[in-house]
């Protein structure tokens, strides 16, 4: 127990990195998700194919392998990012594929008449999506987006094996210098829950606030 209480600052700094990693990755995931979902519903067949290829590639690869590929493989081609940036790019790109699929189901749930009315007024495909369809699609997919955010918080621990000192890696460090795996990893687990449990409540709150009156 003392190993935890004596090292709250270590847990704190790890948790801070985890939070930063989560926030930036999720922003990236939202961006990637919008772009890929747009590609998947657009009239141009090559873009639809590219969107599908992206989703299938990401969905069928373990994120840890992608992370290793990015951190150990990419530098061999001369491209080098910091560990933190690498983790943001991989986790954001990975989560983005799932955001895209959630958004696509949201887009399909918007009544077709909404898009028809927008097109009949002269809005192009992109403007129809941007001003009419996506704002409504987002509202219906708040719950799955909340679930993806929660998964992302937990998935940031994948950055531990590449040496990024987030929460799990800090716990590992502590356990090496002062072995007490039960208390140390229990504390880490609780720290993750402190972040993820309130997310459910926040999701429900957001859902209520943005609910569309139909």
């Amino acid at each position, binding site marked *: 127990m003392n190993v935890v209480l004596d090292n709250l600052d270590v847990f704190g700094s790890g948790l801070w990195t985890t939070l930063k990693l989560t926030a930036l990755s999720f922003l990236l995931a939202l961006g990637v998700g919008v772009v890929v979902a747009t590609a998947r519903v657009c009239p141009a067949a090559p873009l639809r194919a590219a969107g599908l290829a992206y989703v299938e590639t990401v969905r069928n690869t373990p994120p840890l392998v992608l992370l290793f590929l990015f951190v150990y493989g990419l530098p061999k081609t001369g491209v080098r990012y910091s560990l933190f940036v690498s983790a943001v790019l991989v986790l954001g790109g990975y989560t983005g594929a799932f955001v895209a699929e959630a958004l696509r189901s949201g887009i399909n749930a918007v009544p077709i008449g909404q898009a028809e*009315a*927008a*097109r*009949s*007024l002269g809005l*192009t495909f992109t*403007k129809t999506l941007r001003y*009419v369809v996506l704002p409504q699609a987002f509202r219906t997919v708040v719950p799955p987006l909340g679930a993806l955010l929660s998964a992302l918080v937990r998935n940031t621990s994948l950055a531990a094996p590449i040496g990024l000192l987030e929460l799990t890696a800090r716990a590992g460090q502590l356990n090496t210098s002062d072995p007490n795996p039960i208390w140390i990893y229990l504390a880490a687990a609780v720290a993750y829950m402190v972040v993820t449990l309130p997310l459910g409540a926040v999701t429900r709150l957001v859902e209520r606030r943005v609910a*569309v009156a*139909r």
Partner: protein
Amino acid sequence: MSLAPQAPAPSASTSQPLIVLDKVCKSFGAHQVLHDIDLTVDRGEVVVIIGPSGSGKSTLCRCINRMEAINSGSITIDGAPLPAEGRALARLRAQVGMVFQSFNLFSHRSVLDNVTLAPVKVRGIPRRQAEATARELLDRVGIGDKADQLPAQLSGGQQQRAAIARALAMEPKIMLFDEPTSALDPEMINEVLDVMRELAASGMTMVVVTHEMGFARTVANRVVFMDEGRIVETAPPAEFFASPKSERARDFLGKILSH
């Protein structure tokens, strides 16, 4: 001697018809819904399309602004062929208003925002100016006090009038109405038809698909009767309702006017 200003000599662009459909065919899969449709609509004309359900009248209306792509034949709007999907088509649609059976107001935006969206985002009109115009239009259709409400807070008749204002905000050359009163409670039908009557009186070119025979009789310049994807007959309303030429039209009118 008359003091009225002399009417300008009709130029080429004002004398030619606004909408020309030539041998238009349309199929959904193996099912052909439009057969060799020829139809011409002049500037300022109100053409009402009637006919039984499934006769292709809504599809015909939706083909005019290419909400449905046709399989063969040609459609010409104001002398120019209907463009293929893309920016040119979007520009054309900006000049052809459409009113739907199910209103299709943007459910996440206020009534005012519904009316200003296209003028601001498509025509680049400054928001303040677009809002002033929108409020005038909403007043004109009688729902000026609903500007800041969401569509779901309005009755069906109010929503449809808002939808008409939204289409008019783009200052269209043509207005297409696809069964605009079919989803309304009976007591709300007239408030929408009144707005359409006023629009017709103002000289708007209109193509109206409807089951409202009273409207067809009093407002239309021409009635087009369709059945099984074909135009069966076209006539001025007085003539059509008094003595329909085709057996099919007589049968149709007999069924709907007898009760």
